[in-house]
């Protein structure tokens, strides 16, 4: 679990956003998907983001993942102001420092599990031999070594999400952003996936997880609740069910 002994070294501020706005224009109406949101998350924190549909939690996650740009506000990732980076630099940050896990898995259908996991390393220009080794060990760590040559359609939902997690973590990012990672899974495989994610937190990864499911959300060490584009609640209380 995410809560063993607290490390003694000082926590690094991993995510630091202040006064972030994200406005959309829908027809001639201004929609405030995020409205003056500020948030600090330290390295190794396990944060769940909950809230009703349209409350802005996915928008927040996309902004944190540099898939979207804020209308206003500042975003520091691991001490670096990333809002002012060029497109190419942002792409590099996404490749190196951020991992994404999606509800829909988003595996490339024509590639095998191993090839899917390999993609971020390929984009980073890592040599093929090194990639093979890293991909194999990543798949082994998730118990997927015998599925590495299967295509996504030959895998179960839980297996697909494991491949997606392997892909998200293959470049050893500092932050993992998960958008409803169990939303498409049955209870059993959803639980397995959460346990994998929590084991990553135990190894020092910072995890932000958007979820609808209070059972999942309440397992996090810190629970954020969003409402109408604002941060409605920031609960650092210990999880009520940590077993």
């Amino acid at each position, binding site marked *: 679990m995410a809560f063993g002994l607290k490390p003694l070294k000082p926590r690094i501020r991993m995510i630091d956003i202040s006064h972030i706005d994200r406005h959309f224009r829908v027809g001639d109406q201004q929609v405030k998907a995020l409205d003056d949101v500020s948030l600090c998350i330290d390295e190794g924190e396990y944060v769940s983001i909950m809230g009703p549909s349209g409350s802005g939690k996915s928008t927040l996650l996309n902004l944190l993942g540099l*898939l979207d740009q804020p209308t206003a506000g500042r975003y520091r990732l691991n001490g670096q102001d990333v809002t002012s980076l060029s497109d190419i630099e942002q792409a590099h940050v996404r490749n190196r420092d951020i991992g994404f896990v999606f509800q829909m898995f*988003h595996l490339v259908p024509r590639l095998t599990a191993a090839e899917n996991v390999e993609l971020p390393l390929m984009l*980073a220009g890592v040599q093929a031999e090194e990639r093979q080794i890293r991909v194999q060990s990543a798949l082994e760590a998730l118990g997927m070594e015998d599925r590495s040559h299967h295509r996504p359609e030959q895998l179960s939902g839980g297996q697909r999400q494991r491949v997606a997690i392997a892909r998200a973590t293959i470049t050893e990012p500092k932050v993992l952003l998960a958008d409803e990672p169990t939303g498409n899974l049955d209870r059993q495989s959803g639980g397995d996936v959460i346990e994998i994610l929590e084991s990553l937190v135990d190894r020092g990864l910072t995890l932000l997880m958007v979820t609808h499911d209070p059972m999942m959300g309440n397992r996090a060490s810190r629970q954020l609740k969003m409402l109408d584009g604002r941060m409605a609640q920031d609960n650092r209380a210990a999880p009520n069910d940590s077993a």
Partner: protein
Amino acid sequence: MTLHSRDVMGFATKALLGYPVRTGLMLVAMAIGVGSVLVLTALGEGARGYVTGEFASLGTNMVIVLPGRSETGGMNPGAMFGDTPRDLTLGDASALERSPRVQRVAPLNVGSVSVSYGARSRDVVMLGSTHALLPIRHWRMAQGRFLPLSDIDRALPVAVLGENLRDELFAAEPALGQWIRIADRRFRVIGILASSGQSIGVDTAETIIVPVAAAQQLLNTQSLFRILVEARSREGIEPVKGFVENTIAARHQGERDVTVTTQDAVLSTFDEILSALTIAVGGIAGISLAVAGILIMNVMLVAISERTAEIGLLKAIGATSRQIILFILVEASLLALFGALIGLALGHAGAWAIRLGFPTLPAYPPWWVVFTVVLVAVLTAVIFSLFPARSAAKLNPVLALSRR
């Protein structure tokens, strides 16, 4: 972050193999475009080769003398003043033999006459010439002999027939030694020309050949239609041309009232015309290449809209816009390249089939066409894929990922 070219190739190849039907259709479109360029240029080249070959069979190292001066546009300025050009005569032809550079000279008269044997009669083209005509035109005899060596102005009553004419007049009867009638005169058949097929200008199989003096009597003329002069060598053509012009001018009171052309001039004109034709048909076929390029653009657009989520994912895991453009352009280029290679095979097969069906046509696609067509195919694919590639690179990853 630099992609390795092997990885880009691998990724693009997997993308092509992932959609076999679409890839197959595109390959067919590209192959047809490339193949048709090859086949059509091969046809053009074949026609050119055929005509060039035909000209060679008309005679090599030839200088041709025509009465009248053809200036710009082939007009005869003398005719404007009621001044008819001086005739070419048998004397002119004899005079042209007096140069060491001249191999042989054949005067030529052409006219339409009625030939009869017994009750059978035919209207045919009659050539009047000398024994020199046979080697000049590279003809062969099927039977008997050609016109005998004799004085140029002796109107011997002998005739050489084309094979078809022989068949029409004599059917199965032997023709050699028989007397036939041309207009009101009698001629003895001394030889039959071997059919050399349809040669430009004259179908030798339908012709009758008589001594030039006899032809002039039959046609009631003093003037020659042409004088064919064969130079001893290719290098001799120009000096012989000068010699001919000077000799005729000297005989015509210093007036340059004949036209002297060379086989080369005529040949190069035909060569130019047929080369232009080849380029024209090649260009028309090139349109199908452009069509294939547009098809590739459409297919890439469809591919991108189908793979929107994938492009969104690539962005999410750190692909730059350039990398995405690169993936798409490489995919399109591979498609074009393999299509073009299949097209080359198709085109060569087509040209081979043409050569098989028409052995006289040397239908080979020119090497530069083969080279250019592959280059153009790939370039078209890249150029037409730039737009879809850029639109893919500009996709908003959030929206792209929310699409399924």
